[in-house]
């Protein structure tokens, strides 16, 4: 009897968590799959015309989705290597100096705690070309003789460029932090041993440092991939809410637009798109894990 009571009490402690997770995570998970197979689900009537792969086929043939897919992949392919590499360089530099290191570390972490939307607006102002002025960045480029270009409403490559720059700016603090602490946790005896052996700095880096921190690097690559595939707010910050019009939509943006907003009201399409995104992310994460398992040896 007492035992029963104890059991029941434990569940009482868990009740809030279970209720909220059940309603807002587990049920939606099942529901979204159902939605995605229901053709033409209607919000008002709560009914659909039938079931099938129609939603998937629609989404995959939607030029907006194709555009979003392309944008997302470009963001992933460009920003993940660039930001990881840059973070590695900065962390290495940071680890090899002593004075001012804390100050630099604090400054570098700042973007992590700022509102993406707010700072995105600043980036937009810096990159935008208006009737009044070419903008800060164009002014700088002008010094090097580069013709001015509107990065916000201009050609696709320019928009992509500023999008990638901003994304890298936003994700770097996290990566620098993780890599700096990974580097700090490498036993200094390894470096002493290497020094006594007369190891060249490049060899120390590629043969000792990099393998030793490789678990963290892989962790960052994996989370970086996942994060980049979910890119959305950064784009909204730069190009506004109507990303389709700007040609800068992402897959997550497509999902939300299907759900709500100017082109919204289609939860079935949104669900199908979200599941496609999830499958892509899942596949790539699995590949990543397999690669990392093969290259991280200890």
């Amino acid at each position, binding site marked *: 009897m007492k035992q029963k009571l104890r059991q029941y*009490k434990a569940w009482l402690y868990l009740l809030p968590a279970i209720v909220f997770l059940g309603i807002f995570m587990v049920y939606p998970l099942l529901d979204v799959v159902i939605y995605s197979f229901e053709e033409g689900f209607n919000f008002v009537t709560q009914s659909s015309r039938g079931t099938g792969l129609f939603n998937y086929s629609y989404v995959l043939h939607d030029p907006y989705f194709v555009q979003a897919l392309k944008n997302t992949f470009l963001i992933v392919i460009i920003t993940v290597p660039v930001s990881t590499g840059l973070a590695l360089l900065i962390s290495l530099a940071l680890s090899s100096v002593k004075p001012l290191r804390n100050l630099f570390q604090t400054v570098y972490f700042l973007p992590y705690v700022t509102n993406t939307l707010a700072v995105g607006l600043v980036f937009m102002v810096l990159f935008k070309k208006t009737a009044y002025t070419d903008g800060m960045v164009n002014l700088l480029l002008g010094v090097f003789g580069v013709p001015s270009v509107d990065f916000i409403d201009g050609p696709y490559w320019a928009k992509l460029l500023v999008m990638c720059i901003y994304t890298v700016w936003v994700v770097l603090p996290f990566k620098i932090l993780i890599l700096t602490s990974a580097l700090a946790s490498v036993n200094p005896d390894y470096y002493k041993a290497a020094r006594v052996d007369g190891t060249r700095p490049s060899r120390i880096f590629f043969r000792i440092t990099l393998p030793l921190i490789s678990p963290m690097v892989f962790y960052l690559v994996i989370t970086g991939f996942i994060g980049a595939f979910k890119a959305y707010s950064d784009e909204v910050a730069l190009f506004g809410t109507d990303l389709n019009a700007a040609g800068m939509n992402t897959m997550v943006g497509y999902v939300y637009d299907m759900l709500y907003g100017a082109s919204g009201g289609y939860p079935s399409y949104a669900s199908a798109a979200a599941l496609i995104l999830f499958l892509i992310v899942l596949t790539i994460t699995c590949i990543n894990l397999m690669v990392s398992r093969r290259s991280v040896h200890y």
Partner: protein
Amino acid sequence: MTQENVVFSGTAATDFSSQAKRRRRIRTSLLYVFLTIWAVAVLFPFYWMILTSFKSQGAYNSEQTPKFYVSEPTAENYREAFTAVPLARYFGNTLIFTIVTTALMMVVIILAAFAFARLKFRGKNLLFTLFLSLMMIPNELVIITNYVTITKWDLRNSFPGLILPSITSVFYIYLLKETFEQIPEELYKAAKVDGTSDFKYLRRVMIPIARPTLVTIAILKVIECWNSYVWPRLITDKAEYFLVSNGIQEIREHGFGRDNIPAMMAAVVVISVPLIVLFLIFRNKIMEGVSRGGIKA
């Protein structure tokens, strides 16, 4: 084995050392240059938004080439930011949203983490595994149904609608459970022998001991709430319920006649300041928490 390996003359040795010293000095200087460049890249947007927020709209618009300084600083933009758009309202909404969400979440995760860490019940391992597997589920996947659910419950444009879906976090339950488990179980047994109730033990022993982790989690959640954009955007379309992120987007697209950049920058400064202040106060806690949790906002 022989020992004829070291061949060098005395003068060569001293040459080597001064040369090495010079090379080291150059290397260090280059490192600092590189670090400074990135620091400028990080700080420049902040500098620019503060700078611009003190320029008058007229002065700003007449700058064909943007100026790096402000000749006649004005606080007019800040007044404008609070009067022309309901910035104070966005601010207050965000404050309420952040505090309530964080507080509720702390209660929920503390209870759950305690149950997983110390209480015994059938199915504990299975349930915990289920919880962990939920960590892999991206928010994007469940947000669709949640949107439908909240709409169905008629909670759009309301605080409950904003708050409810984000008051559990599997990740934080996991983090806290690990912390709780590090508290020696002997303490729990001793308390049981003394006849202390579970709840009293949780309140009097566990929570005080785990306080550093609890504070870290709370701060991280506050940051997350303050910057949340997607869910509030879906669930609110009336300005009375906008949070700062949505507010800033609204301002960008409709406020200040779209061209009053200095006023926009003033609004941006206002909504950025609280978190930066929080960060500067809790710098070590936040950085340690983020690197320990390995979480990405």
